């Protein structure tokens, strides 16, 4: 869905000014007007995207996060990639790539993959689901602030989409040796990434914290 971008400078909306914020990249003080749906506010000095508002953003994030989490669960038990060579079939699941690294004495790499491609995106999704359900109730559920804060700190370390590219790279490398098949888990992981990216791109830190503030 394409939202029409509209850049708003401070000058045009001085009279509607609601809140003053500081630009995160250049520290300029800006009076931020109340945005209409589909509008975007950027810093007049450094052009940093400050905030944008989408129609029904929080419901859409909730729906996408729940679907992403279900797809992530389906990505675990089934075969990820399989190939046949000389009559023998070789199959790996998602966990095999992590367990195998640990077995080969590369514990740190195994932990890195486990966290950046599975635990961190999974934790972010669960925390987002919790926060958004909490926002739909009259009173906030406990730990809403802390969990939302954790989402914004952890989300920088999500590398799920990079793992997907790595799978495709190794897929092409092996396909010159044998015929390779992508399994059910792989497709589930692809849908997980699509939902995750869609959900994170709708997430706006200013708008969601304003919503949390209203409940305080």
């Amino acid at each position, binding site marked *: 869905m394409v939202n029409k971008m509209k850049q708003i400078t401070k000058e045009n909306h001085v009279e509607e000014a609601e809140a003053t914020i500081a630009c*995160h990249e250049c*520290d300029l*003080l800006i009076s931020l007007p109340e945005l209409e749906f589909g509008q975007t506010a950027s810093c007049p000095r*450094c052009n940093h995207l400050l905030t944008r508002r989408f129609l029904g953003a929080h419901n859409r994030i909730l729906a996408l996060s729940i679907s992403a989490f279900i797809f992530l669960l389906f990505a675990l038990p089934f075969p990820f990639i399989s190939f046949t060579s000389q009559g023998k079939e070789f199959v790996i699941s998602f966990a095999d790539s992590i367990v195998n*690294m640990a077995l080969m004495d590369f514990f*740190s*790499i195994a932990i890195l993959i486990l966290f950046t491609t599975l635990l961190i995106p999974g934790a972010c999704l669960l925390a987002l689901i919790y926060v958004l359900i909490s926002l739909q109730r009259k009173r906030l559920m406990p730990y809403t602030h802390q969990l*939302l804060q954790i989402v914004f700190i952890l989300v920088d370390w999500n590398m799920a989409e990079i793992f997907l590219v790595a799978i495709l790279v190794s897929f092409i490398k*092996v396909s010159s040796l044998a015929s390779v098949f992508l399994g059910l888990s792989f497709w589930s992981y692809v849908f997980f990434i699509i939902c995750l990216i869609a959900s994170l791109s709708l997430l706006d830190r200013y708008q969601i*914290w304003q919503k949390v503030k209203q409940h305080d």
Partner: protein
Amino acid sequence: MIDKHRDNAEHNHQYGCPVCLTLNPMSQPRCRTCGRHLHLIKSKSIQHTIALLLTSIILYIPANLLPMMYTNWLGQQTTSTIMGGVISLWEPGTYPIAIVIFVASILVPIGKILTLSWLCLSVTIKKSDSRRINLELYRFTELIGRWSMVDVFAVAILAALVQMGQVMSVYPGTAALAFAGMVITTMLAAMTFDPRLMWANQPNMHNKEKQNAP
């Protein structure tokens, strides 16, 4: 003409929260909306960036010299470094993959290290005329930094997938560790670098620019 809204938050003794963008008075230790600990813009942040950057440069050397991957093929063992992996992929049919790996594991890390060094230098010597380009460079490094991890992940998947005993097996090499460490330290260096330092000590920069414009 002094427009106080054009000022930096720091000059008004206020601080924007990095998590929720709420403006807090500088005396406050925690953000009043989200409760995050507030760290003020300090010249110290540049030292953290430089330290992490030096670590990543040191790690980049073994990452390129040591083998990234061992391949056992019919009893013969071959080792390949990062550059060797790119060269071996450079053949008809796998050009796109070779380009992806080359960009992700050679161009991006070098570019990132050079950009961050340049940013640290220009902030320390308080050079302000190339600020706009610097900011674009900073945004770009933050955006693409994670993608260097492709090679490490690909080795992990290959090592799990290609285990056919004597016929062919793949094992990860020590360079994978050094390379992963390098990617993480450059990511941390980019995160600790505070772009607001580029705009610090310039209270009415915007007005000056306006006056200078023809």
